[in-house]
């Protein structure tokens, strides 16, 4: 099939001026909050090695854009930001500065095989807090993400929080081995209630505990979780206490009503080892972003430190942001040979005052009426000349 001149690869989009403007505003607002919270912004390369970032990123292989460098090594267009930042943080330069706070606003690439409606290149904005394994670090990143959602005006935003390790321990208490609990978690990720019920029949769960097992997907508060906590298991007790403290910390930051604590909530991103969370809002049918604790990922770069962070999808935030912005004044000055100097002076004056002006040679405009309609004010050269 020949490619028509106007076509773009599947999932690639042009940002027309209006969208580009919205994104620029969103970037400004978001990164400002990130910087104010003490995070430093950074950029990483667009191309990475398949062997390192490609594999560590936990993005499925067929979603990676791959290409070869001149030595025949396989490269990928970066599919996420967390793993490149983990690599940077593990570098010598930054090791001494732990804990470090890094933020980013970058485009990432994920190939789409199905139909349209999903971009293959999109911006992500987020932070990584590396070298702090305390609960305060988790509370800090969740609250920061929340502040960004609020500042952008996302309607009825919600956060769902789960805990990978605690879920693992609880599933083990039901008598499941690693493979079985892996299967259960896969179904939990997809919230496949029917699948869980069917699988439960094949699992070695004691008769009396079946109802309790099936209820795992219904918990919404930390208090609900208590039902599954084995008080004799020290790790479970500790982690549960942590969750109670986290609930308190987040409540104090004003997030209380917006959080669902779902013990069955899991991520398909395998590097999350502890807390995991996801953000939702009205207007987008897909989650706005996600995050969690990924101490295991840092280990792959040879570093035994705690790390936590989140990433928000800019394309979905745009669908969710409802607040209408007031239209900015935009003046058009139409000049001709006689009024050229007056027009130029006037434009400088308006621009110096901080306003927006388009300077246009009038005879070059073919459809005057539709062109002038784009502006809030139109000044003609002869008006300027006549004072």
């Amino acid at each position, binding site marked *: 099939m020949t490619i028509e001149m106007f076509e773009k690869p599947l999932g690639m989009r042009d940002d027309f001026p209006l969208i580009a403007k919205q994104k620029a505003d969103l970037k400004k607002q978001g990164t400002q909050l990130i910087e104010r919270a003490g995070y430093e912004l950074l950029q990483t390369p667009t191309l990475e090695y398949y062997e390192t970032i490609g594999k560590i990123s936990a993005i499925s292989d067929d979603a990676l854009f791959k290409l070869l460098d001149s030595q025949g090594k396989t490269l990928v267009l970066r599919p996420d930001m967390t793993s490149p930042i983990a690599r940077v943080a593990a570098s010598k330069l930054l090791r001494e500065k732990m804990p470090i706070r890094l933020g980013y606003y970058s485009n990432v690439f994920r190939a789409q095989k199905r139909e349209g*409606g999903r971009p293959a290149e999109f911006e992500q904005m987020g932070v990584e807090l590396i070298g702090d394994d305390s609960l305060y670090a988790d509370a800090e990143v969740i609250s920061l993400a929340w502040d960004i959602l609020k500042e952008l005006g996302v309607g*009825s935003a*919600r956060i*769902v929080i789960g805990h990978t390790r605690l879920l693992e321990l609880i599933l083990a208490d039901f008598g499941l081995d690693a493979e079985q609990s892996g299967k259960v978690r896969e179904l939990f990720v*997809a*919230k*496949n*209630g*029917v*699948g869980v*019920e069917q699988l439960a029949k094949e699992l070695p769960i004691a008769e009396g505990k079946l109802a309790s097992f099936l209820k795992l997907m*219904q918990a*919404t508060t930390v208090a609900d979780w208590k039902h599954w906590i084995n008080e004799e298991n020290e790790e479970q007790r500790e982690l549960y206490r942590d969750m109670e403290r986290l609930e308190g910390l987040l409540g104090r930051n004003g997030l209380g009503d917006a959080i*669902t604590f779902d013990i069955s909530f899991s991520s398909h991103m395998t590097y999350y080892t502890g807390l995991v969370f996801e953000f*939702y*809002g*009205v207007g*987008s*049918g*897909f*989650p706005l972003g996600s995050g969690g604790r990924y101490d295991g990922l840092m280990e792959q770069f040879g570093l035994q430190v705690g790390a936590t962070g989140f990433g928000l999808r800019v394309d979905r935030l745009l669908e969710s942001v409802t607040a209408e912005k007031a239209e900015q004044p935009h003046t058009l000055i139409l000049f001709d040979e006689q009024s050229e100097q007056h027009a130029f002076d006037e434009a400088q004056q308006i621009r110096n005052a901080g306003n927006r002006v388009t300077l246009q040679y009038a005879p070059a405009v073919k459809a005057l009426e539709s062109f002038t309609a784009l502006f809030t004010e139109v000044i003609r050269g002869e008006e300027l000349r006549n004072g």
Partner: protein
Amino acid sequence: MDELTIAMPKGRIFEEAYELLVGAGYDLPKELDDSRKLIVEAPNEKFRFILAKPMDVPTYVEHGVADIGIAGKDVLLEHDRDVHELLDLGISECYIATAGLPDTEMDEVTPRIATKYPAVASHYYRSKGEQVEIIELNGSIELAPLIGLSDRIVDIVSTGRTLKDNGLVEYEKIADITSRLIANPVSYRLKQQRITELVDKLREQVGR
């Protein structure tokens, strides 16, 4: 109360699902399906129904233009959409199976399979360690082995009547199929209370 948008397949599944909802105590208008309208409202319950092709229901739900939907497991298996499968409604029971002419072996070099479910068929034969060639058809799949287009077909069987009338026999069963209640992951979180309530009420009905 939030409005819930529900994507429903037209036809027989719709009628059975309608009965379930009414049985669960929902106050729905009497005649929902017999107009040519694609969107119908049930204002008393703040429901809005989207009447769609069965194959398209998971698509509407995945993109979030419908909060929940009712879809056959066959469609869910075939399309692997990102939706939550909340409840087995136990309606429209049938299964997916392979079938062909009686006492025939599949071609050893290039076995050919005709089906409306290319992904299901391909996954099934791959899991058996057999490489097959899939031929996608849109209907009357039973024709394919009769006129020499394929060795086997992979299709829905409910009574087995169509196979029998055309002199075909069933070989292997692939999966049991019923209709499922599915939800968009975001709607599930933002309207969790309403959706869980609906699931609980329907579960009681299904259990009967």
